[in-house]
Structures are given as C-alpha cells and as structure tokens.
C-alpha cells in the first residue's frame, strides 16, 4: 500500500517561507490571500498489507524522522489498504 504523508508547521510557529509565498502571490495580482503556510509531502510505498500495522509504522516513521515534533505536525492517508 502507499502512505501519503503531510508534514505541516504547528500553529504558532512562524513560517517565513509561507509569508514570502503570500507576498509573491500578491505581487502576481492574486487578491484576497490570507495566511499561507507551507509544508512537506512524502509518499512511501509499503510492503505491509495490514492496515493497522501500517498505521503504526507510518506514525513511528513520522515521529522518528519525517517530522520534527517540536515544530511540526503530521497527517497521513493509506491508499490500497
């Protein structure tokens, strides 16, 4: 199955890159842009066929490496389970 993982900055953590994106979009003429937050997206192919086991594995991957839990949150979807 495939895990689709999103890593985002926690609320309250300043995101200067998001701010720069908002400014650039404004400069391109896009109106009505509020707060912009940017993050990471990771796809992982897993051999695992059991959904519950895959969930646990993905959570461990996120907490040990993919996200820095000091500043980031993660969410994920499993596809093909």
């Amino acid at each position, binding site marked *: 199955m495939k895990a689709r993982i999103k890593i985002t900055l926690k609320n309250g*953590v*300043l995101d*200067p890159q998001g701010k*720069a994106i908002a400014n650039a979009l404004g400069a391109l003429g896009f109106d009505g842009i509020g707060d912009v937050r940017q993050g990471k997206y990771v796809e992982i192919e897993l051999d695992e066929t059991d959904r519950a086991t895959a969930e646990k594995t993905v959570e461990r991957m996120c907490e040990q*490496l993919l996200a*820095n839990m*000091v*500043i980031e949150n993660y969410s994920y979807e499993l596809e093909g389970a």
Partner: protein
Amino acid sequence: MKASVIVFPGSNCDRDVAVSLEAAMGNKPAMVWHRDSQVPDSDLIVLPGGFSYGDYLRSGAMAAHSPIMRDVIKKAKAGTPVLGICNGFHLLTESGLLPGVLMRNASLKFVCKDVLLNVERNDTDFARGYAKHQVIRIPIAHHDGNYFADEETLDRLEGENRIAFRYCDTSGALTETANPNGSRRSIAGIYNESGTVLGLMPHPERLADAALGGTDGKPMFDTLIEALH
C-alpha cells in the same frame, strides 16, 4: 588529550576545527566517519559544521540517525563533552541532546558574516576563557539558524542558566538588528543541563588564528583543552 571530530558526507568545517584543536592540543584529533559505530576513547567529541546529507528533509535530520550518533549520544549522556558547531548544533537538537530546533532564517537568506556575541556564562569548560558578558566577534554562515523553542522551554533554559551565547550589538545589548536570523531571545548557543554539551550556530574555529583575521574563537579551544587535559 584525545579529541574526535565526527565526519559526515557533506561536513565542510571538519578540517577547520581539526586545525583549531591541533593548535590547542599539540596533537591531531581522530577523524571519525559517520558509518563507524564506535567513537574512539575521547575526552572531547566535536560535531562540525557543514551540510550533512545535503540538509535533506531538515538540516541534521539524517545525520542524527547515522550509526556513529548512537555512540555519540551514549557518550554525551555519560558526561563526555560534546561541541556542536552550526550543522553540529542541528545534530544536537535533532538527536534530542539539546532542546528546540533551528528553523529557516527569518530573512529566508543565507547569512555569512561576523556577528557579535554576548557571553552569557563563563563557568563552563567551553567559556572559561571569556569574561561574563564579554562581547566577542565570531562568524556565522547558515541558512537555518533561527533558534525556536516554545515559551516554556525558553523560560526553562533561562531559569537553568543554559543560554551560552546571544547575538548582541557592540555594547552587548540584545537588539533586533543585532539578531541575524530571528532566533528567539537572540539565542546563538545553548548548553545541556550539566554544561557539558554545547551547541552554537557561530563558528569559533573560523576566527581562532590571527591569520584568519581574529582570535575571539581561540579561547574556547584553549580552555577546553586545558580543562580536559
């Protein structure tokens, strides 16, 4: 006196810091490859600056899980002094030896220049060569040096006297313009609870010889070596 410098793919200040250590110690430090699982018997371990693993995912994130780091963490917890400079500071936060995280600079720019630091404490082997609140000049060169931790952690660091250096102006004041990267509370470096692990973004090894244009970084190596001899 034995020191070890850990070398990762992408380290680029490993030889600079080795030169500074050799000048202070009189002998060469061991250069230890990241794939090794054991740090040789050492009085000091240095995690050098650079771009370990190309800064993939997050600065220091990959290197923090390399085989050698398991032993570095073990030895640091047992009391071996560890100095992490720049990318080495990333590694110390990513491996959990120091709290917080170093985010992208607030300006989003790579900043490479000399900055002034206020020496917040001088009762550690790293900082004994400075006066308390002395203003020293040390270069920085980083894209991700914006120190962040939640308010509770910052209060705890201050309460436990664990701030090592802060960015300041010539008078030692912590102004916004003197803060090159947006770090919370102008933090440039912090200690662990016992004061034996230091992580800092500035590069003392880059101003540790008169030929480099300054020697404000030299006392750090001299007092470390003197204390650990």
